[in-house]
């Protein structure tokens, strides 16, 4: 069991969730509450990582973050080391790749709130912030929780993008998914087996929790 890889994976997943939580709430809420021209295109764009092969995304991220790119050079000038092959580069890739997993369930959660409830909140004198905080978030929490869990589990298992952008550097970018790949190549089936089982267990718990909370949600819906 490669503990450093496991802890790196957990760290990556946690950070991805922390970043996507406010982002997902903001965008998910905006999409649920507004109609505008081109909304379908925006939603399609945000869903793109779902259908994009990881290697394609990895390729474009390398181009965008690599040493020759403006972003990469900016980062290197600021921090003294390249953005690719670093944990930060990996985190950036992970956030981008998980956008649909975070935004879509949250958006559905907000959409499940009857629009009249928001109107009622406005008539009660609540500001938009207060409406979000006191009314919408408590009602949309199953969607938000689902998004958090899915993002977490998905990040744990992410392989292709991590490999292309991260480079499998132990302690920096060698996540547990990559470590498993590595162990198999080293003919260490025992090590690979243990880590795979651990990842399977964590993913199962995560998705089970998501489904469980989603099934308890309907009691809160107001028809």
């Amino acid at each position, binding site marked *: 069991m490669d503990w450093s890889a496991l802890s790196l994976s957990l760290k990556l997943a946690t950070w991805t969730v*922390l*970043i996507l939580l406010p982002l997902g709430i903001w965008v998910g809420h905006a999409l649920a509450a507004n109609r505008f021209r081109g909304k379908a295109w925006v939603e399609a764009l945000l869903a793109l990582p779902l259908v994009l092969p990881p290697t394609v995304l990895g390729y474009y991220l390398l181009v965008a973050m690599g040493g020759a790119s403006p972003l990469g050079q900016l980062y290197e000038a600021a921090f003294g080391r*390249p953005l*690719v*092959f670093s944990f930060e580069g990996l985190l950036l890739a992970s956030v981008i790749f998980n956008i649909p997993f975070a935004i879509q369930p949250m958006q559905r959660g907000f959409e499940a709130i009857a629009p009249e409830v928001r109107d009622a909140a406005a008539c009660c004198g609540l500001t938009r912030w207060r409406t979000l905080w006191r009314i919408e978030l408590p009602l949309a929490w199953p969607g938000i929780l689902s998004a958090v869990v899915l993002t977490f589990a998905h990040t744990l298992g992410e392989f292709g993008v991590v490999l292309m952008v991260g480079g499998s550097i132990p*302690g920096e970018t060698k996540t547990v998914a990559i470590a498993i790949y590595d162990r198999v190549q080293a003919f260490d089936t025992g090590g690979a087996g243990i880590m795979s089982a651990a990842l399977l267990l964590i993913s199962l718990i995560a998705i089970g929790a998501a489904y469980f909370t989603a099934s308890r949600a309907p009691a809160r819906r107001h028809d």
Partner: protein
Amino acid sequence: MGYHKLLIILVFLLTVPNGMAAPVERPAVAAASDLQFALAAVATRFEADTQQSVRLSFGSSGNYFRQIGQGAPFQLFLSADENFVLQLHQAGKTEDRGVLYATGRIVLFAPHGSSLQVDDQLAGLRNALAHGQIRRFAIANPEHAPYGRAAEQALRKLGLWDALQRKLVLGENVSQAAQFAASGSTQGGIFAYSLALSPAVAKQGRHVLMPENLHQPLRQRMALVKGAGATAHAFYVYLQQPAARAIFEKFGFVVPSGARQ
């Protein structure tokens, strides 16, 4: 309100520098896959002898060549093809031209259960091909793995390349090629001698060393990347010393005598 607090905590957490073990203490070493077992053994001894340790990554030399060229934070590169190291030096990425640390050899391998007969002229392979007994054959990807290139050269020289080409399974590096060959999902393969000698692989089939004249020599060169720290330097030196050389030889590498450039 509550949001502002959350935002502040978040910003704070994000700007705290990555507190992982500072790479300087445990430098990242990029090594060709054929060194999978040999280098691991050396590193263990290094740790026992000097109380310093390194973080090993194994993969295809071509891949590491590209990554180091793009600034990947490896401090030492052990390539299976010396050209990669020389090119990196020309690009100004390494401290110097490095040293030749070993010469590699290839083997023909047949997993248990395969009808392929192994011999050093590959007559068995030729025979099996003629009888249509070879469905899949594993080598490393010749485009970026030196051992794959060597395998291709050998096969071409023996006139077996055309017949085999459509049946090839390409490993991303020589380790994966060994995986494919040993797993029984292919009828055989060509990969590194050093891998075939390891107990884990050896017990999965039978192999024969292929003559050196069938391919360009696999001159394995290593070099320190610019900016490498003290531990990386120490390891670099250690690799050229008798203890390390003995391990390399045990794994079938031909070790250059004395310090040769």
